[in-house]
């Protein structure tokens, strides 16, 4: 396991991606404070709330998420296959342990980097926008809040809501990384792995049942709708992860 962490932190490409992922939410906060004259209250200025004009950073970060995860950690297996290192490692560790630790490292590192990036954004927002006064959610009418109790509840507990959404979205990113790593197991070629990961992610973020609604706090969607999205995503991801893992462990690679 130590070897995998060492690999993550000594790979220049991974370090570059980690820095980018840490920077996006900070750039979003800078843009937000320059686009509007009214300074937002801290709980409304976070990256996941998405109050910036055009949602540029959210699009660059979240729509293209599979690329960052692939370069950072998920394509490790493809690199191993290219260098033949996978055979050495499987002989040394055994198949179960080799594929298992590949999955584990992709989950834990993606979860940690995403969580750290958003937590840093949370802390910086609360420091920089401490004296912010503009709160767009205060303009949401009672009429709408009455039919959307979930939104009303979130707005009355803004800090907890933000923290819960940061945790849930980080977990989802971790599971997404597991799924992408599983795709790499089955298609150990960059061409197919990148293409398929992208298709899968774009199908999930499109339409009215977009998975990005799970990432965003203070949306007007009811709890039932969000629960449906989260369940169908987790079921789909689990099928891909389990079938790929068992296929790899059961079939003969060497």
């Amino acid at each position, binding site marked *: 396991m130590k070897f995998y962490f060492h690999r993550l932190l000594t790979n220049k490409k991974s370090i570059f991606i980690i820095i980018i992922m840490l920077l996006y939410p900070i750039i979003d906060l800078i843009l937000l404070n320059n*686009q*509007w*004259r*009214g300074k937002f209250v801290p709980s409304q200025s976070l990256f996941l709330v*998405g*109050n910036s*004009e*055009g*949602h540029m950073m*959210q*699009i660059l970060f*979240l*729509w293209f998420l599979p690329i960052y995860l692939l370069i950072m950690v998920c394509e490790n297996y493809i690199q191993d296959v290219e260098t033949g290192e996978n055979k050495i490692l499987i002989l040394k560790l055994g198949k179960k342990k080799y594929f298992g630790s590949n999955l584990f490292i992709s989950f834990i590192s993606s979860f940690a980097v995403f969580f750290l990036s958003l937590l840093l954004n949370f802390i910086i927002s609360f420091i920089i926008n401490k004296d912010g006064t*503009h709160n*767009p*959610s205060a*303009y*949401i*009418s009672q*009429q*709408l809040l009455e*039919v*959307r109790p979930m939104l009303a509840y979130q707005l009355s507990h803004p800090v907890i809501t933000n923290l819960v959404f940061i945790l849930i979205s980080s977990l989802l990113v971790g599971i997404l990384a597991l799924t992408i790593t599983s795709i790499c197991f089955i298609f150990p070629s960059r061409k197919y792995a990148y293409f398929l990961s992208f298709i899968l992610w*774009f199908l999930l*973020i*499109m*339409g*009215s049942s*977009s998975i*990005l*609604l799970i990432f*965003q706090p203070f*949306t*007007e969607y009811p709890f039932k709708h969000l629960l449906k999205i989260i369940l169908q995503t987790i079921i789909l991801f689990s099928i891909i992860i389990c079938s790929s893992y068992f296929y790899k462990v059961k079939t003969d690679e060497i």
Partner: protein
Amino acid sequence: MVNVTESGEGNTAITQYWLENAGGTNVSDAFPVAEIENTKYFPAYDNASQTDVYLTAQNNNYTSDTYGVTGYWDEETGVFYSH
């Protein structure tokens, strides 16, 4: 003043509206409006007065969803905000 009569995202879905001047500079903050809400009035910055302004809108969600909205807006309402 903004009143949305029809939103392609749904009748409780929020769209953010703000004013821009001819140069594309924002001359008001962005405010949320949904179809089921009545006419809403919002304040603008001082540089929005005595100039042509344009209403701009975006989905409050950063999903890839796009939709159309229909409604009324007026920038000279005579409603004053005491800030």
